[in-house]
């Protein structure tokens, strides 16, 4: 599904290398987790994959179902099935949450040559999905993320994911700022989307989320590279011992 090879990335503005040869392959139907110390490049990887400005790929490649995504505009990547749940969801005053989501759903459908979803069907779907995530009607009406609490913003990301039904979901610290109940809601939302055709890349610092979203593979990222890959037990090791042992071992 998602295939990243030897990805090197620097900042455009300053001469600073952040990713130094990331190799990663996520197969359809699998959940991969990425853990790693602060500043190791996890968010940068997610931004580069989704097409944010300001980064320069100096080497390597990234493909989604065989298509080179690094050449695409952000909206083309989204239409191709890539989704990023942001570590810091953006507030957009003046743009209603509902308008935003319907515009997004229809833009993606249009890009794929599909018909637009009717207003009635859209409303039905979003109401049902919002209810599962305990997002009330008022939040749907408000401007995108404006005045939302940290946890509400994260749930709103999952709602967007549920509505857009992407093939490849990248979740950047979606668990941070969530209370225990909200974490359960978010995990349920993700688990409901798990299926044979969809891949997940879950960036997190904590084992807790992985108790709910059971990963198939766990990667450790340090200093712009994947330094170790293993099963769910790797996350437990991090939880118990921190990164020191692992980093010492690969150094």
């Amino acid at each position, binding site marked *: 599904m998602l295939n990243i090879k030897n990805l090197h990335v620097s900042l455009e503005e300053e001469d600073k290398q952040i990713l130094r040869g990331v190799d990663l392959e996520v197969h359809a139907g699998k959940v991969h987790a990425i853990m790693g110390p602060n500043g190791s490049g996890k968010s940068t990887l997610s931004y580069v994959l*989704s*097409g*944010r*400005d300001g980064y320069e790929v100096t080497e390597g490649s990234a493909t989604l179902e065989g298509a080179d995504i690094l050449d695409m*505009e*952000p*909206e083309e*990547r*989204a*239409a191709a099935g890539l989704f*990023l749940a*942001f570590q810091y*969801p*953006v*507030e*957009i*005053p*003046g*743009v209603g949450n509902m*308008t*935003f*989501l319907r*515009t*997004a*759903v229809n*833009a*993606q459908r249009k*890009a794929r040559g599909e018909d637009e979803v009717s207003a009635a069907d859209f409303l039905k779907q979003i109401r049902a999905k919002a209810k599962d995530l305990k997002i009330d009607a008022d939040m749907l009406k408000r*401007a*995108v993320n404006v005045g939302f609490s940290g946890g509400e913003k994260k749930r709103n990301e999952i709602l*967007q994911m549920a509505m*857009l039904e992407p093939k490849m979901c990248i979740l950047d610290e979606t668990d941070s700022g969530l209370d225990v109940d909200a974490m359960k809601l978010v995990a349920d939302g993700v688990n409901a989307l798990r299926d044979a055709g969809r891949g997940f890349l879950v960036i997190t610092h904590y084992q807790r989320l992985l108790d709910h979203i059971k990963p198939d593979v766990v990667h450790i990222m340090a200093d712009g590279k994947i330094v170790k890959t293993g099963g769910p037990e790797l996350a437990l090791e991090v939880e118990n011992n921190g990164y020191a042992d692992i980093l010492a071992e690969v150094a």
Partner: protein
Amino acid sequence: MALPQAKLDATEARLAALPVPDGAAWAKAAREDALARLRAMGLPGRRDEYWRFTNPADLILPEAPEAAVFISTDYGPLYDVIDRVKLVFVDGVFDAEASDDPVAAGLEISRLAEASATDIHWAKDLYGTLEARGQVPVQRPLAALNTATATDGVLIRATGKAEKPVSLVYLHRNTTSDATLHHVIRVEEGAELTVLENGPAAARFNKCMEVDVADGGAFHHIRAQGRDHERRAVTHMFARVGKESTYKSFTLTANGVLTRNEQFIEITGDNSVVHVAGAALGDGDFHHDDTVFITHDAVDCESRQVFKKVLRNGATGVFQGKILVKPGAQKTDGYQISQALLLDEDSQFLAKPELEIYADDVACSHGSTSGAIDETALFYLRARGIPKSLAQDLLTLAFVAEAIDEIEDDAIAAEIMSRLEGWLQRHR
């Protein structure tokens, strides 16, 4: 102090091209007074402080600069969905054929051209009066010129809740037309009136509207200035607002090489509300100036100024806005915001927000900003699959929304919004 010779010459040259119309004694007197005011002030020049950001040269030339006529094929006429009394002016000349019968419950409508020839008319105490009040503390010579030389306009008196809005439609057919219209509006005690305006009017348009809102009255004004790009316009609204009354005005300006819209509003009665708002969209050699002066001379009144400009390819936006709170005008709630969204680095926004407060128990705030599209928000929208141009439109509409929100009528707001969307799509 004597006026500079250049100013005197420009003023006389302009007047020579404009005969002062004849009329009944009251109209003649009002026009002569205005003429005297004008001669004492002289027409505006580039050096005048109040014209620092906008060059008035094209507005004072004896002849109107040529302006191509724009014919829209993509939309039906604005406000067509609204049941209204339509009054049409072509290049500043009233077109009775194209207009509705000026009759509706709660309304008295007459033409300035006819009323000014009769000895008795309710407008005789108003014509030129509010304009004259608006000459202090800042001079507005083009308004005095208007009062002195306008040959036509409408005089509207609302005696109750007007059955329908009065819709003034200004068509432009002649590439060198120079139109001067003067309207007078009196909203009687407890009456309600909505005035709609739309269209470019002429190659050059000088329009003055005097609005007197009596106690408990409500006046709503929505205007769209037409898409003719080469047109030039200077407009003045002079209003006096009595107690427990409302004055709300919204203007959409899309295109226009030169537009100066002035509003001078005096709140003279307690517990009243005044809102003036505008959205301006300009591409290229667009110059748009909103100059607003609101005086609070009563207790417990609210005023809001909300102006948004979207500028690209070197377009210029100007805002001069003042809130003057007179001694004793306690509990004044004054708000003023002027913002420009600059879609490129060539465009510019020049703003002069001012507060002058002589009362101690007031809450007044003002803010002025100009900035580019929020790149973080743009990326967020695109990351959800919304194409860049559409995402930019969404953010631009969101930027303008606070001004559009000032339109109370949902049907009109929706029409204005669709024009705005259309403009954005054409100017990507």
